[in-house]
């Protein structure tokens, strides 16, 4: 992404992570590629109180590792910690349903265990979870604090808006959460979900407690703010009730499944695709050779679909991969595959024609995809025609886009005679006189070296490029 010409307003501390501003007693700082956390004296004391518990979770890989750092804390802070660096930062609006559900369950499990130890969590932000492949890890160690007997669950609304409601959107209505969540970074408002909820929802105690009553009470409280606040301040929730709420949510979320995703366009792709067994075998062989030749430590697979070829690359020399796809059903299958085969694969939702932007406060709180690291290699198999023909994007720009992703790559060209392309053009008409293998090849060669090509039975061609 090109930097904007307009000077950017400074953050109040030069190294503050742009998303670290909510908790005044803790700051995440990024310096020379290190991730540091500054704690106030109070936060440091609380951290000492809960440290043993955090170490236990760290040992199980559920919480990101941290250690004391020798750096001088910024003014107003008393102690510095350094965190293990995560391989990649992703956001809930990019996670497939299965990963958002996994992140929600991790949050609930940690919170329930915390309560048993007299510890609680100050918030319930989905952005406090990150992924190593498909394993969720909790990153905000400053949100642990001692539990005060009888206190209400302050993070309940946030949990619902950032975890539960997006999951319910898919489970109840068959609507994938990505677009809505990306446009609404604090999550999907309970009032909005309640407005959509069918009348029979009133018969479900879980929907009542976590969706319908909170939305109704919020409306009622807006009319009688003073008395609502008095009631809330007076209220105490017994620990057993707190634990029961977390347990109820856990039981509900663990059984949620996205509705209708298996019928999405590409989830049936492996069964319905148009090329022959020998073309498939040839393609697998080329992918294996590409991975073995370059052994990328990070591979991006654009249009990964169900992760079939990502798995081939991972089995033949790629150390880790991120698979991007715009189809929620295909992403579910990729998650299943990653889990089944124990792959170092993180499947994420992404539409290449509209990639995740830099957004949030000052346009910097959540980073653009292009600013979150560069892979060693890229694969884009049966992908280019979706941009060039599906979205009418100029073929030369599509080629340049692929070349900019990584210093080397393997990209497939799908010719016009291909049955898939014929289907795509059946109603649209052939308005692409310049779409040809020669034009694609020339566009690649204009910016990179084509080091090898492999023609597949049926007319498709794989191009190996190096910058």
């Amino acid at each position, binding site marked *: 992404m090109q930097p904007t010409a307009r000077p950017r307003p400074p953050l109040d501390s030069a190294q503050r992570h742009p998303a670290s501003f909510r908790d005044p007693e803790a700051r995440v700082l990024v310096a020379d590629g290190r991730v540091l956390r500054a704690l106030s004296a109070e936060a440091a004391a609380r951290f000492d109180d809960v440290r043993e518990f955090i170490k236990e979770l760290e040992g199980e890989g559920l919480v990101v590792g941290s250690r004391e750092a020798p750096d001088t804390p910024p003014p107003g802070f008393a102690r510095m910690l350094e965190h293990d660096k995560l391989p990649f930062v992703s956001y809930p609006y990019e996670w497939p349903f299965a990963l958002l559900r996994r992140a929600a369950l991790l949050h609930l499990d940690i919170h329930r265990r915390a309560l048993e130890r007299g510890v609680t969590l*100050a918030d319930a932000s989905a952005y406090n979870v990150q992924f190593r492949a498909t394993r969720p890890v909790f990153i905000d160690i400053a949100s642990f604090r001692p539990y005060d007997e009888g206190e209400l669950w302050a*993070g309940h*609304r946030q949990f619902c808006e950032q975890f539960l409601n997006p999951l319910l959107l898919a489970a109840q209505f068959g609507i994938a959460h990505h677009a809505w969540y990306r446009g609404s970074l604090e999550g999907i408002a309970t009032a909005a979900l309640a407005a959509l909820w069918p009348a029979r929802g009133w018969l479900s105690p879980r929907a009542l407690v976590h969706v319908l009553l909170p939305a109704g009470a919020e409306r*009622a409280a807006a009319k009688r703010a003073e008395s609502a606040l008095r009631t*809330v301040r007076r209220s105490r929730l017994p620990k057993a009730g707190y634990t029961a709420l977390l347990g109820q949510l856990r039981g509900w979320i663990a059984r949620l499944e996205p509705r209708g995703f298996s019928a999405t366009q590409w989830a049936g792709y492996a069964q319905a695709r148009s090329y022959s067994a020998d073309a498939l075998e040839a393609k697998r062989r080329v992918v294996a050779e590409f991975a073995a030749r370059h052994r990328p430590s990070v591979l991006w697979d654009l249009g990964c679909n169900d992760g079939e070829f990502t798995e081939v690359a991972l089995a033949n020399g790629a150390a880790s991969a991120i698979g991007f796809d715009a189809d929620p059903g295909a992403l579910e299958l990729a998650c299943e595959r990653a889990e089944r085969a124990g792959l170092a694969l993180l499947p994420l939702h992404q539409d290449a024609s509209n990639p995740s932007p830099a957004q949030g406060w000052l346009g910097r709180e959540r980073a653009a995809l292009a600013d979150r690291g560069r892979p060693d290699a890229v694969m884009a198999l049966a992908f280019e025609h979706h941009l060039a023909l599906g979205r009418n994007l100029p073929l030369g720009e599509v080629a340049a886009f692929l070349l900019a992703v990584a210093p080397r790559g393997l990209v497939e060209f799908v010719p016009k005679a291909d049955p898939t392309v014929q289907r795509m053009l059946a109603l649209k008409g052939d308005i692409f006189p310049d779409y040809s293998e020669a034009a694609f090849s020339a566009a690649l060669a204009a910016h990179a070296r084509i080091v090898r090509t492999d023609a597949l039975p049926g007319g498709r061609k794989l191009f190996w490029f190096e910058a």
Partner: protein
Amino acid sequence: MTRSSSRWVAGASLVLAAGPAWAYIDPGTGSMLVQSALALIAVALVAGRSAWHKVKSFFSRRKDDAADREA
């Protein structure tokens, strides 16, 4: 106000003051009201159960007493 009750008020206000200082997120009145209601329902259920036990034991005691007298 007696000394002990003023100490109680001071203690209670400390507890109340300590809560919000940690809550840097807005918990949302709706969600909190529902939790308050759930807590009340839970208390009512427990109270109801113990009241029911009292009623039950009252009658069973009378039955027992009657049985004792008959014995």
